[in-house]
């Protein structure tokens, strides 16, 4: 719990200075909980308006750079921190609905810390290894579905569901896929943004 508390404080400090953030609850491999925080940077943006029989349809298309920090805890085993970046292609059905669909491709650095004391033995002497853990690189693929709520307010809020597949390498001298499911909110804190 102390890790969550620490991270919560960091998140709140960051949020207070940010304009737009994405914060999500993460479930890793269907069992290990965590949180993720991301700050989207819009690279390109265009809006397409189509006149249909049922009325006007407005679609926004964006390319977004999505730096993100994720923490998840495998109880009594590991605390994992990852720092990474995704290139995200977003399609936003702005009118009449407020749905957002994103596909992402990313690369991450993952650092895990053993959740227990780690020891090594040299010449019969037992020594404590501090900050023991593993390092991984992890390419990722993701798809996200989100929806805006309270869009008429100055600070709208959106929710999204994002499955994300990672390929941890090297992991026990191999490549091991893993899976994060994110359920999060997009916070537009200081000015309206569609990212």
């Amino acid at each position, binding site marked *: 719990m102390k890790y969550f508390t620490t991270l919560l404080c960091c998140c709140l400090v960051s949020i207070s200075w940010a304009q737009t953030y994405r914060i999500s*609850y993460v479930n890793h491999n269907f069992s290990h*909980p965590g949180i993720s925080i991301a700050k989207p940077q819009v690279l390109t943006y265009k809006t397409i308006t189509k006149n249909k029989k049922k009325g006007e349809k407005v679609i926004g298309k964006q390319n977004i750079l999505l730096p993100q920090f994720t923490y998840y805890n495998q109880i009594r085993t590991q605390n994992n921190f990852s720092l990474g970046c995704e290139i995200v292609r977003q399609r936003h059905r702005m009118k009449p609905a407020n749905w957002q669909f994103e596909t992402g491709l990313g690369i991450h650095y993952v650092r*895990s810390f053993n959740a227990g004391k780690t*020891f090594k*033995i040299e010449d019969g002497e037992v020594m404590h290894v501090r900050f023991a853990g593993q390092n991984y690189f992890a390419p990722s693929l993701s798809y996200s579905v989100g929806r805006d709520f309270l869009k008429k307010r100055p600070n709208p809020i959106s929710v999204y569901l994002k499955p994300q597949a990672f390929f941890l390498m090297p992991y026990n001298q191999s490549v091991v896929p893993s*899976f994060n499911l994110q359920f999060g909110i997009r916070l537009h804190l200081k000015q309206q943004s569609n990212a």
Partner: protein
Amino acid sequence: MRNYILSITVLLMAVGCGDVDIKQGDVLYLRHKGADMPAYVYGNMASNKFMILLHGGPGGNGLEYRGGRYVEDLEKDIAVVYWDQRGQGNSRGNNYPEDLTMDLLLDDLDQLVTLLKNQYGKDINLFLYGHSWGGTYGTKYMMSEKRQAQFNGWIESNGAHDIPRLNIEAIKMFQTIGQAELDKGNNVSDWKEIVDFANGVDTLNISEDEGGQINQYGQKAGELIGELKTAGDDEFRMPFRNPVDMVSGSLTGSITANGLVESGIEDIALTDSLYKIKLPTLLLWGKYDFVVPPQLGYDAEKLIGTTDKELVMYEFSDHSPMNGEGMAYAADILRFINDHLK
């Protein structure tokens, strides 16, 4: 904004809670030759009685054994060390300095023993328990007198200490018990498939693929025996949030198992070397174990080089007597341990 922050806080508090008995006990990581291997120590550590559990597979994990009724009985009296072997379960690591071999695994266990004695005292009563593949591992470890001297006793449960012999005996069981079941008209199509397979195997020349198939049919045959006892409703389960990562654990376990097979574990045959074991030994077997047939238990009872040895055959069990006859299983282990304290 205040509401948003409050909601996030509540969410985080919720996901951080809810762990049950998982939080008791110790977690020690052993770092050795490129691998960090967790040992979860649960139970009565004040008793000074420790049992290292060598899990099955290869490719399993220690904590998968911590899910039955028998564990409650064991942990009341002794401390059980659920250790994840190299490349399996929650063990992680890279840059192994050498190939994955049996010798490397034996070194790992030496290091674990040193670590436990460092953490809990040199005078602890230490027992080694191996189930299935853990029986191969443990028996191989016990081939050295120096290594035997570290322990009070050796407990082998359904242990595969002779894999070529295991395959031959499994074929015999498929043929005899399978034919008897066919004659009774029980599960005719399934037994016919197994018996036909067994009749087609040349037991003087069993291939690696056939060995794998024997293992699969062995699991299936155990399920077909109607009189076996299964885990009861009183079995306690691991809470949803537990240390086992089934996704990555099973994937890396398979990779490690393949590596060990390539290194020649399928050829391990220790029947003729069992006389080297001078340590008090308890052998636990299920009568209907088609995966590691009881004949290996009878062999061990006859050939192990000590008079202080005992074979317990569970009449209503297959490869995992701890599931169906867990209370008797735990009682037998505890009796053996308590009879062999320093």
